[in-house]
């Protein structure tokens, strides 16, 4: 049961990483700012600008 919980937590962490939610949390912590719509937009714009200049795999 403990292992199952750990695997579930790992899966959720992976999904949050893929969804950029973890990166956003790190961004807020690094800059010491609270969550807001404007802050998300700032983070998201920077993140997506970097992501969409790199080739995607076939």
């Amino acid at each position: 049961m403990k292992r199952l919980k750990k695997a579930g937590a790992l899966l959720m962490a992976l999904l949050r990483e893929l969804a950029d939610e973890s990166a956003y949390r790190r961004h807020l912590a690094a800059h010491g700012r609270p969550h807001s719509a404007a802050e998300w937009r700032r983070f998201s714009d920077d993140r997506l600008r970097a992501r969409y200049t790199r080739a995607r795999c076939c």
Partner: protein
Amino acid sequence: MKRTIGCLLWAAVSALAALALGTVALHRGEAINSMWLVLAAACTFALGYRFYGKFIAARVMALDARRATPAERLRDGLDFEPTNQWILFGQHFAAIAGPGPLVGPVLAAQFGYLPGTLWIVAGAVLGGAVQDFTILFASMRRDGKSLGEMAREEIGKLGGFTALATVLLILIILQATVALVVVNALKGSPWGTFTVAATMPIALFMGLYLRHMRPGKVLECSLIGFVLVVAAIFGGQAVSESAALAPVFTLTGTGLAVAIILYGFFGSTLPVWLLLAPRGYLSTFVKLGVIFLLAVGILAVRPELQLPAFTRFTDGTGPIFGGKVFPFCFITIACGAISGFHSLISSGTTPKMIARETHAWPIGYGSMLLEGFVALMALIAASVMQPGVYFAVNSPAGVVGAIPAAAAATISGWGFPVTAEGMASLAQTVGEKTLFFRTGGAPSLALGMAHIFAGAGGRAVLGFWYHFAIMFEALFILTLIDAGTRVGRFMLQDMLGHVSKPLGRTGWMPGVIGASAAIVAAWGYFLYQGVRDPLGGINTLWPLFGISNQLLSAVALCVATTILIKMHRARYAWITGIPLAWLVVVTFTAGWQKIFSPLANVGFLAHAAKLAARNAAQASETRRLIFNDRLDAVVCGVFLLLVATILLDSVRVWIGILRGTRPAKLNEAPFVETSLDLERV
């Protein structure tokens, strides 16, 4: 004691691998269960990971757990961030798993299941995983530098430029090829077209939801998007049964090509948050979910393979694409065995997020083996269909005959019985008008997947699963197209910036529109050419894509070999040297045959000559086909020339270092001892 148990366990895995591979390779006549393929791959991959991967990690690269990674030294909370190795494993796998490992094996199944299986198993262990691992290692030691930057630093300016030009050319061919796969899957299919079209407004809604309604709630938003997409599949069924709406969503190949070209253009010019990003998130989750579902389905159903180990088409007369099993099986299956594109991912985000150097082993080597599994599952999905059905779906009308009865007779004449009535009944079951001439691999993969899913959940829902699979394939192919066009636009603007400063500015609208239009026009031309090709187009474009992808892999392996030699590990240069030599032989043979083969079903120039000899050269359609053949020959020649350039340049560098006439200057970041607490990652 523990060591003895370990040795016994690995001896048992080795024996099982030998038994499974022997069974797969030697079994003839009766149908074989797909579990033998799964077992052969699982045991071989486990052995490859445990012994070969570990050997490379420990002896060749000497991964050092004490050395701080770029994620630790340059930590900025955004790009550079130490990440849990299994999370990063999942992220890296999600990035390398595209449509390639799904479509390539389906097309290569025309040779039978055995050539593809053996190539996936051997290629992934000895080639693909080695390439991904070595490039990830090299980039990690260089603060996350890209393949192009490493080529420039380690080989020279010529190498760097060649790598950049190769990537841009490959992007163009890739976009056209995968777009053609979507066109052929949706042609004349109102159900599929509606479902895929509905993903556009859904993505726009998701973009607005994420931007203005619930900022930051990506998982929540993606879940809503997924529910809407599934609702769109049911909506598609209603549309296909509606006398008024069905004709609106019944598009020709040309109509669909124009729609995808326009989509690529808008995807490249619209703000990323509005369309690309929400689609990207949704596509990633759906992709991982479907791959997991397919694995569970195969394990639950354990289907028998209907395709033989070898078909008669190993002799090069295949209807899906021309050319013998060597070299064409090895360029048709690229991703899944070895893919140059992976080197771009291994030198992209991943090296900036590795917490410990030793994590590069499971992430670089291990995730490629998992990709090999995905390719194997696609091959199984194609092989569980009746061979007659497989060839009826994948053969172009230009080869088997434009009328279903004639096509069925031709395919049955090859020894793969199929009837026009049987195909019509199957088409009706999955909610399509016809399944004949659906070249490109996606429809047959969808059929195979639907067959497996329906085996686990009942045949009544075959139509739903078929369109679910089509939606899944189209969704992430279109994500590849919009992102690829944008990347191509950036690369072009980067080059144009050297000529005129404003053209290089990515925020200057005329520059953005001009560069986007140029990139879209480039791949759109090849797409249009494929759509109008009487032989289905995929027979031309997929080999071109395969050759270019494998050549990019050769570029990556040149860089990796150069780095190994500079690290004074020349005695281990065979690790990358053998796959490099294999790829050079395979791709140059394939490239040469595609240009100069005297057989019209293989060589571009021979096909052009055959058309010209028909004495119909005055017809504009024939003139266009001849021009396209010649253009394809030129593109193929350019690929070969680019890679020959970087190969010769690399050999020059290797000889210089080994002779001592050139300094073995490594461009690694200096050693800094780690102080990272892994428990806190």
